[in-house]
Every structure is written in structure tokens, then in C-alpha cells.
């Protein structure tokens, strides 16, 4: 198991899902989404995949887009992965529930242990879950309910699972993330700060926290793609997207910053944590 926090960010593979045309067309509007520039969104997605593969050296698996699933690229909502276990979620939006099927299949093929959420009363969006390396926080947002959080606790029994009420229109991961094994980064909105305070009260572990001007900047991914002892990376929103937060991010030490852009996809509610799923096929190495 290694020292506490060691498990954070270990990954060998990244899973993403292509951007369907339906995301740019009127169909997305049905889901109440603003129109977006499809070509730009696809370009952003392509660059993201490229960085994951080339900059981070990860095995990249890309699921094909499905027109019936406009929000399919946001596959971070469909699974919670820790170690060798993947909990397939039950997204709040009934329209999105079919998204889990492709993801389940891919994760299964990669050899992960699949856990399903049987309970029909439970809802859980994967981006309401923050894993710190030592414990889980589950945001009780408009998408995730208590029962959903409870299933997270049932699935990952080694870890404390605490609930964090999240107010406003964000998922928990839209407000905060991990900047390192012992560092929580959070946006400066009231909702983000409140979530961080709640987490601070609930945890047994010492974390530092770093406040960023933009909430969206806190939706970053701390990744350790290589072998233990290898370099660490922070995949984050770059200066083109969020210029105000760049300076603060420089303060994270021992981590190589890898900026990416997803401002167009953001219009569909995407953040870095929802655009890719990280996993390790050697969870115990």
C-alpha cells in the first residue's frame, strides 16, 4: 500500500470518449446546453488526448463517440476508479445513464473489478467524488444523493468516505481537486471555500490547501503515470482558458504542469475530471 497518499494519481491508462456531432447540434439544446463550436470542441478533445498520450506517456483508449449520447465525452461521471476497482455510477440524469455501458465494457476489458450500483434510489455522478489518496469525499450536489455516496463507501471499504454538501450548480470536482498528495486546490467561490472547510473538518489527515481565483482551475488532475518514484504531473486548464489562475498554480512544487484547454467543452459542463478517466492496470505496483 505504500505510504499514505502514495496511491494518488497512479495511472497507466487514460480513457476518453470522442465528441459526437450531437453535442454541437440542436440536440444538446434539449439538455439545456448552450450552443457550442463543435469543431473547436473536437479540436480541444484531440489535443487533450495527444497530451495524455505523448506528454504523460499514458496508454490512451478512446471510445468512439455516439450520437445518441451527446454528453458521452464527459465519461468522468460514469465511473469512480480506485486501485483495481471501478464503481459504475448511476448518473442523476436518466438520459445519461446509457453512457455507462461503453465505459463499463472498456474497464472490464482492462481487467478492473467492476462494481455496479444496484440501488434504483441512488444517484451518483463521478465528478462529485474526490479521492485524495487517503480518503474519499463525495459531494452531495444536485446530482448525487446520500444513497449514492453510501455505495461509494460500500465499494471502497479501506477508506473513509465523507460527505460534503455542495451548493450551487457545480459538481464537487468543479470546485476542488488535488494538487499533490497532500495538497487540496480549490476555487475561491463561496461554494468552493465552503466545501473545503467542510472537508477540513471531516478529515483526519493533514492537507495543505491552495486557493485559485477560478473554480474551474481547481478541476485539475494530479497524475503519476510512471513507476513509483517517477515524475508527477498536473494536468490543468492553461492560460488561454483561465489566465488568472496560472500564477497560483506555479506555487505547486514537485509537479510538472501540463496545461490544456477545454473552454469550448466547458460550455457543455465539461472539466478535466469529466473528460478523462485514469486508471492503472498495475494498481499494486
Amino acid at each position, binding site marked *: 500500500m505504500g505510504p499514505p497518499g502514495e496511491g494518488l494519481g497512479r495511472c497507466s491508462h487514460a480513457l476518453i470518449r470522442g465528441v459526437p456531432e450531437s453535442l454541437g447540434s440542436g440536440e444538446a439544446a434539449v439538455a439545456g446546453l448552450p450552443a457550442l463550436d463543435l469543431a473547436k470542441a473536437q479540436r480541444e478533445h484531440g489535443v487533450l488526448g495527444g497530451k495524455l498520450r505523448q506528454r504523460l506517456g499514458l496508454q490512451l483508449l478512446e471510445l468512439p463517440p455516439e450520437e445518441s449520447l451527446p454528453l458521452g465525452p464527459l465519461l468522468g461521471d460514469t465511473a469512480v476508479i480506485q*486501485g483495481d476497482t471501478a464503481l459504475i455510477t448511476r448518473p442523476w440524469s436518466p438520459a445519461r445513464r446509457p453512457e455507462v455501458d461503453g465505459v463499463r465494457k472498456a474497464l472490464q476489458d482492462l481487467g478492473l473489478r467492476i462494481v455496479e450500483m444496484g440501488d434504483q434510489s441512488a444517484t451518483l455522478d463521478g465528478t462529485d467524488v474526490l479521492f485524495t489518496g487517503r480518503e474519499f469525499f463525495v459531494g452531495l450536489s444536485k446530482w448525487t444523493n446520500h444513497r449514492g455516496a453510501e455505495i461509494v463507501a460500500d465499494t471502497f471499504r479501506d477508506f473513509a468516505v465523507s460527505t460534503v454538501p455542495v451548493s450551487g450548480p457545480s459538481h464537487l470536482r468543479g470546485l476542488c481537486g488535488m494538487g499533490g498528495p497532500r495538497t487540496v486546490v480549490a476555487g475561491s467561490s463561496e461554494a468552493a471555500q465552503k466545501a473545503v472547510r467542510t472537508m477540513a473538518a471531516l478529515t483526519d489527515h493533514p492537507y495543505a490547501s491552495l*486557493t485559485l481565483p477560478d473554480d474551474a482551475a481547481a478541476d485539475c488532475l494530479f497524475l503519476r503515470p510512471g513507476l513509483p518514484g517517477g515524475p508527477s504531473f498536473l494536468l490543468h486548464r492553461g492560460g488561454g482558458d483561465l489566465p488568472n489562475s496560472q500564477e497560483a498554480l506555479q506555487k505547486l512544487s514537485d509537479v510538472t504542469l501540463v496545461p490544456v484547454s477545454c473552454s469550448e467543452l466547458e460550455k457543455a459542463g465539461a472539466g478535466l475530471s469529466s473528460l478523462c478517466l485514469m486508471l492503472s492496470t498495475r494498481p499494486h505496483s
Partner: protein
Amino acid sequence: MTTETGPDSEVKKAQEEAPQQPEAAAAVTTPVIPAGHGHPEANSNEKHLPQQDTRPAEQSLDMEEKDYSEADGLSERTTPSKAQKSPQKIAKKYKSAICRVTLLDASEYECEVEKHGRGQVLFDLVCEHLNLLEKDYFGLTFCDADSQKNWLDPSKEIKKQIRSSSWNFAFTVKFYPPDPAQLTEDITRYYLCLQLRADIITGRLPCSFVTHALLGSYAVQAELGDYDAEEHVGNYVSELRFAPNQTRELEERIMELHKTYRGMTPGEAEIHFLENAKKLSMYGVDLHHAKDSEGIDIMLGVCANGLLIYRDRLRINRFAWPKILKISYKRSNFYIKIRPGEYEQFESTIGFKLPNHRSAKRLWKVCIEHHTFFRLVSPEPPPKGFLVMGSKFRYSGRTQAQTRQASALIDRPAPFFERSSSKRYTMSRSLDGAEFSRPASVSENHDAGPDSDKPEEDAESGGRRSEAEEGEVRTPTKIKELKPEQETTPRHKQEFLDKPEDVLLKHQASINELKRTLKEPNSKLIHRDRDWERDRRLPSSPASPSPKGTPEKASESQRTQDAFQQDLVPGTAAGLEVFTQKSLAASPEPVKTETMTVSSLAIRKKIEPEAVLQSRVSTVDHTQVDGSAPLGKEFMTTTPSITTETISTTMENSLKSGKGAAAMIPGPQTVATEIRSLSPIIGKDVLTSTYGATAETLSTSTTTHVTKTVKGGFSETRIEKRIIITGDEDVDQDQALALAIKEAKLQHPDMLVTKAVVYRETDPSPEERDKKPQES
């Protein structure tokens, strides 16, 4: 222990036998001499007894009446408490009772205890039987008439606690050490492992498949030793229990892992086991069923760091000890008074509804005990004086800080013991259904029925109501009832300055006291955790508007940490906000303190492969006196750190150790050896200061330095010898050193060589010399 033949004869009938346990009897009549055996800790335990025990009866009278007005009290008071009183006075210590104690391996131990003996007498007997010295982490439980598990209070008569129940007890872990590696003896860890294995099997300590497999594999290695292809055939682990629902897949995984542990000793396997088990989120959490103010079922978990609130399996709130000002109970309600958060002016009190009065009291006591054990340096004396309302119960045993100090002085060769438990364990466990043994556990788990609560304590609630219906304990610091209006930023600082002076003084006094006790040269300012500094130094974002602000819920320690950091990095601005810090006592981080230590560590490493050195790491709690200490507010803040000074060796071992040490220095001409002895026994300050050359090719001179210190009941004599061995190049320094150590050993046969530091003074440059001991 001798056991009497007629097992049934003892409890009710007055036996007029001569005491079989004179010691035990003595312990009862004169509490200052505990259970014989002269364990110093027993002494310290007993010290608190007189106040506590001399007058409980009359003082509690008015409380009793109060009790009667309440429903719970009514049902309980009809117990024979009063009736017993008079016989007790006349009762002779000549009567004895047979106690049956279920041990952690599920075997049963029978012993005889004077009928009016205190819990301590029995506990000491059991620990002696188990050959256990670090016993403060453990306790005895019994089941009351409602089959609730109660802790046997060592300071009270057994008979009064168990009342009409049978004299059956279970030996269990009471305080789960947050860092088991800091336990001194393997045997202590062994018992802790047994407890945890039971916790896992019963589901009290939930874990994932992967962890079940990992822990199971270490358990197998500890119990069966190395994998042996001839001996271990088929599914050789299937008869052992590892998980509540054990599958073939799990067993296979365990066997796979077991094969990879060749050469791992049982002791090492247990350390690995514990290092992994301690990270589990429910490790050492004592759960109690309750309802919140809205009537929702929750669980209250008491642990080393504070109080955790669970709903289903989810943690929904947490109150670290520093955040709690007062703990109290009244009837079936349990209350905690919370320190105000940043934006709050007032303290708040949170109430929980327990199933009944007794469960509220049990929870209250467990809180008091955990708080004292893990958070305080020494137990608080029970309240005195006429103003005392409520229970006078206080934890009177040693605190973790004290037990660590004491166990650092344990001076015996590692005791031999057999590890083979789980089969027996499982058998009897599954048969007799855990009713009484160990954790009333399963039921303690999240999904258990609402009526099973937990560790209860002495059942005097009914038997003899010496305690009040309500209990409350204030954590030692007074905090102002009303916080002045303050604005965001300077808050932390101010809060610190706001501290009433007497608190600070008191705090400083206890720091000084601890320092004196420790008398450690390096006990001054060891910053507990370097990583912290690193992490915490993250500068802040200039753009964040309300940086530090707020934490309504931020725990006390968070503020402490903020301030701590201010001290470290003056001028660190906003933005970086420290998140919360594990309560210090519970998150010990080893800190190496001096080069001396480092070099002896190096030696030890060197030697271990030879497997002859019996090494020991002593724990010393260093006091932190810099800015953060007073901010620790209510309690002494200690920073446990490991020093490796007490590497103790036995005679033959020291020879080898000498070798190992010398081996690090290839080809020296002169070897200077420093031997330091540490012994818990005094009176050894007569020393010869020189001794003759032991070989023709060398000349040896010895300088001796003796220090005597007194530490909490122990007197410790340290002898430092500087032995200069001079010789020419072909001197076998290994041998020379070995001889020198042997000689020293012969001169002080009752002492231990704890450290041998070898310096070579030859041609090589000084840097090289300095480096060498460390790098190997």
C-alpha cells in the same frame, strides 16, 4: 495460577478459605501496593485511587436520589447494591472467586482473585499470564445482564461492577495505538494483531478484498512461517479465517502473496500487518448507536483523534478533541460543546440521543478515556470538592505518552511466545457466537441493530450508584464564552494572544515538566513533520479574496497549524490555508534528531542482516515549545519522535554488533569506541575508569562518563565510555572492538550496551570520517 476445583462454589457462597493469593489480597487492603509484581505503572495507577475510592459512597448519595427520579434509575436501583454494602465491610479478603478470561486467541484463562479485589488485580494477573508489559493499551470487558459489553474499571472492585453476572471476562485492546510500530515489544504487537484479526472477521473493521488478501497473507506468514512446498499443499490456508465472507478467490490470493514472503520473520510480518491495518478508516474506532437531533439513526465513533459521526457508512461530521470543549450526558442524552468557529460567536452544544441512560454513560466514559489516553500527558485527577456535580469518573490509567515513556525502559530479552491462534480462534468463535468475547463488535458495526452498544464501563449505574446521572468533563482549557468580534485575517494570531495567561502559563509549566522528565538533550524543538513545512510553504494566491477566512468548521488544530506556519514562514500570505492536522499525539512521525543517532542507526542497519542483534527503538515524546505549542491550547502538545539510541544488545550480540560497526570502517588504525549503557536499575555508578590492554598489539584507554537521571519512577544510569584503542595497521579492529565491548559488558553485567559509535582517527580527511558511519 492455581485453579480451584469447584468452579461454582465461589461466587455466591462465602468461602472461608485461606487466601490463595496473598498478593492480591494485599492489593485490596492497601491499594498502594498493587497486585504485587511491583510494576511501576501499577503504582502510578493506584496513586489516584485513594481519592477516588475513599469516599465515593457517601458523596454519591445525593446523586443517587437524583437518579431515582429518573426512569432509568428506577429499573436499576433494585439491584442488590445497598444490601451488599454491609457484608462488604465485614467480608474478608479471604474469600476468592474464580475468574474466567477469554484471551485474544480465544483460549480461556482461569485464575482466582480475592472476592473484593479490584479490577486491576485481575488485569495484572492476566497480563502476567500473557507475559505482556505494555498493557495500557488493553483492558478487560464483561457482559452485564443486558449482554452489553462493559469495561472493567481497574480502580473499582470487580464484584461491584459485575454485580450478579458471572465472573467471565474478555481480554481486549482498549486503545488502538495509532502507530503500532512504536510499540516496544513484538509480543504486544502480536496481541494487537490478534485483536485486529478478530475485528476483521467480525466485520467491525471493514476492508476491501485487496486488503483482506494482504492482511491475510501477513497473518499466514506470521502464523505458518515461510511457504514450504512440501508442507503447504492444497488449500493450506482454508482453515484460517481472514474475512467475514471468505472466498476461495481470497484464499488463493493469500497463498500467492504468502509465497513471496520468504525469510520474513513472524515479527516482521506482524509489523507489515499492522502498518496496513492502521490505515483503514475504521481502525480503532469505537462505534455507538445514536440518533441525532432530528431522530435520524447515526453512529458515534470514538477514536484517538476525536469523535466521528457516521450516517450509514458515511462520515458526516467529525469533532477533533481540540474542537470539543465539554463532553457530558444526561439521562439518555449525550452532549458535546463545540468551540466556536471562525465566524461564530458562541459555543454550540450538540446533543445526541442514545438508546438509554446507560449507553449514554458508556459513551461518555469511552470519550473521557480516549481523550485522556491520547490527548493528555497525564490523567486528570478526579474532581474534588463540594462543587462537583455529576460523575467523578476519570480515566486513571496511564496515558499514551506515559506508557510510551515507560515502555522505552522495558529491559528484557524479547519473550518467547507461540503464535498459533486463528484456528482455535475461529472454532470457538463461530461456535459460541462471540456473545461475550471481545467486541460486542459485529453489532457495533454500521449496519448493526440499534440496541447493541458498546464498551460499557463499570456497571455501578445500578449496583451502587456512586456516580451521578449526569457526567461532564471540561477539557482543560477555559475558553471565553463569548468571542469578541474579529475580522478575518489576524484572527489566528489574535486567538493565540487571547488565550488567558494562566492557561499559557500552565501550559508552559507542563511543557517544562515534561522536558525535565525526559531529560533528553534534543527534546527541545523538533518540528514534528518536515513534509508539512514543505507542503505548507506553498505561497498563496494573490488573487484569493478571503483567504484564511472562515473555517466555521475548521478544527482547532487547523488554526494551530496556521499559526505554526506563520512562525515558520513569516509573511506567508493568504491563500494557503492549512487544511487540518491530525491530532499530534496520534500522528507521530519519526524524526531523526542528531547525528549521533543517525550513526547508530547506520550501525544497526548494518547488523540486522546477521539477525543477532536484538534492537529496540525507544520512543521519546519531545515537547514542542515553539509557537505552536501554546496554540495547542488546551492540551500539552507533544511530538513523539523516534530516537534510535536504545539499541540494546545482549552479551554475545554486542560482540557481533561491534563487528558490524567496525566493519564499516575499512582499514582503520585506531578505533575509538563509545559505549553507552542504559539500565532501568540504579546504583551502578561505581565504575572503573580504566582497564588494561587486552591484546599485545594494542593499547587501550577508557574514559567513563556516568549520568543518572530519574524518569517517572525509573532511575536510569547511563554510562558513556570512550575507549581509545591504539594500534598499528594490522590490528584487527573488529576483534579489538569486540573485546572492548565484552570488557565493558563484564564490568557492568547488569547493564546493556545500547550504542557503540566507532570513530576512526587515521589519515583520511575529516569529511570522509564523518561521512562514513552514515553512509553504510
